[in-house]
């Protein structure tokens, strides 16, 4: 019975909630395969306390992957230590989160382990030939269904926020094992990647935090000057703020503190109005918890419409003018 390995997402020595989503995905794989045993791997310089706690909480077996070099994330150390461990286990599946860390080390691990590698998985299914993995492609307009080649293990990175964590109500405690593995840098005695510092772009996202209503602009607004109309639109509402999709920040039209999405802010307002935003998975990750979503887009097939309560197919500029007129008459 081959094992299904979950590589925990660690940050500053703390296990991250994304780990429970990956564990849920592993449980789904086990159920669909009708075989397999799940093990959670905790890479850390001091994994024992976290491993014990995790085994108690989840009822699953846990391996603490211990190495002094695993204190902070380093792709070379992660890849080598995980490879040494995984080789001895020979699992069928290796799962981790599609985060800045997961997508940094997982593809390399797949190469050294001669495994298939499927990134940013958003659903797991099966047909008569085996398990199938779905991933969002073409700007989130389609899901591509992929199967690993026969007879090889597979490394999966799972899209955050998709797999619902299980409620573990376990009587039994999982087993804990500590595996100490030394990292040896290649030929020379130094690491290839040196960690200098951690920088933070903005301490706290005061702009969007707590706003009851968020009006967001995307590339569809056409030019920077058109942000004025978005701000005016936002002023129709009380307790509102202006959000944007990432390209507007990248182009320097507005500050990072306005960015919504996986590399921006995660927001949960009562109302989210998306203006000229296509609805990439990276943007949706930041606004999926909004209570009510209105989208205005001139493309009736824009993916954002699948994730909206109210859909308006119009050019953004004339629509905002028409809306302002309505507001003025009230």
């Amino acid at each position, binding site marked *: 019975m081959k094992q299904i390995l979950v590589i925990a997402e660690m940050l500053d020595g703390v296990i991250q909630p994304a780990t429970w989503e990956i564990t849920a995905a592993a449980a789904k794989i086990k159920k669909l395969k009708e075989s397999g045993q799940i093990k959670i791997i905790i890479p850390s310089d001091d994994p024992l306390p976290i491993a014990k706690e995790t085994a108690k909480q989840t009822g699953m077996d846990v391996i603490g992957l211990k190495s002094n070099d695993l204190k902070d994330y380093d792709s070379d150390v992660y890849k080598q230590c995980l490879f040494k461990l995984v080789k001895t286990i020979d699992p069928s599946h290796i799962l981790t989160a599609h985060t800045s860390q997961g997508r940094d080390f997982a593809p390399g691990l797949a190469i050294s382990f001669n495994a298939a590698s499927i990134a940013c998985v958003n659903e797991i299914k099966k047909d008569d030939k085996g398990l199938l993995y779905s991933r969002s492609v073409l700007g989130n307009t389609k899901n591509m269904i992929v199967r690993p080649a026969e007879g090889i293990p597979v490394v999966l990175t799972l899209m955050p926020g998709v797999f619902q964590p299980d409620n573990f109500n376990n009587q039994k405690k999982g087993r804990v094992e500590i595996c100490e593995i030394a990292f040896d840098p290649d030929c020379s005695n130094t690491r290839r990647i040196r960690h200098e510092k951690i920088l933070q772009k903005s301490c706290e996202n005061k702009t969007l935090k707590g706003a009851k209503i968020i009006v967001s602009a995307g590339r569809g607004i056409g030019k920077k000057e058109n942000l004025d109309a978005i701000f005016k639109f936002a002023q129709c509402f009380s307790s509102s703020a202006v959000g944007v999709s990432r390209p507007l920040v990248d182009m320097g039209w507005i500050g990072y503190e306005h960015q919504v999405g996986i*590399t921006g802010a995660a927001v949960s307002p009562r109302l989210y109005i998306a203006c000229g935003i296509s609805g990439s998975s990276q943007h949706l990750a930041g606004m999926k918890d909004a209570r009510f979503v209105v989208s205005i887009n001139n493309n009736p097939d824009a993916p954002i419409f699948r994730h*909206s309560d109210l859909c*308006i197919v119009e050019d953004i500029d004339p629509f905002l003018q028409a809306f302002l007129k309505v507001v003025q008459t009230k």
Partner: protein
Amino acid sequence: MKSLICIKQSNESGEMNLFDTHAIEEALKLKQKFENRGYQEDFSVDVVTIGPSENSKIIKRAFGMGADKGYHVITKERGYSFSFETASRLAAVAKKESYDLILTGIMSQDLMAGQTGPMLAEILNLPCVTGVVKTELAADNSSIKVEQEMENGFRNGLEIILPAVLTIQAGINTPRYPTLSRMLAAGKKEIMTFNETDLFSKKTGAVQAREIFVSMEDPQKTRAGHLLQGSLADKAKQLFTVLHGKALI
């Protein structure tokens, strides 16, 4: 200094993958800074793409931006090829010269996997940093300082020993447009082409796919998706009514 930029034509737009334009721009900026420091040595910016013959259009575009040499691995298949196959072919090209710096986009806009760069690095046994938003070459050119984007506005400041692979995130720079004179010259510039058989020996054979395409599906709706009907003014009124009814305006 030799740099190699891996570029791809998007299946969606037919244009060069957006993130790859940022990668070329970053290499050209590094080259500019390098030359301003007055080294004897050259800084070359080569590009490589894999795909059917019509994809040479993006190599021409790269020449127009200022790239030096262009490599094209010609494959028959249109459509999608998975990261492992792409990375294996890129590695075979990269091995032909000793590159100090290899750049890719953080992901392709069509397949959105973000695996090609880190896989290429592993095959070549080079260090790799994904999601790079800032670069600065060390004074002795033996390493490069980068900032790697993490979640929640955090960035890792890292220094990587060269040779290395970096995957470039949008927002790092504003890609230049090709100049007309360069585009004209690009027409005459030679592109070095390879077939699969040129890249892999008989013994190793062609790359074996590790992932198999099954089908494309429409993503599921997660919300009601009520579509407003009528004239522009009607829709504006309806939106107001709905929001007013929910006490949101």
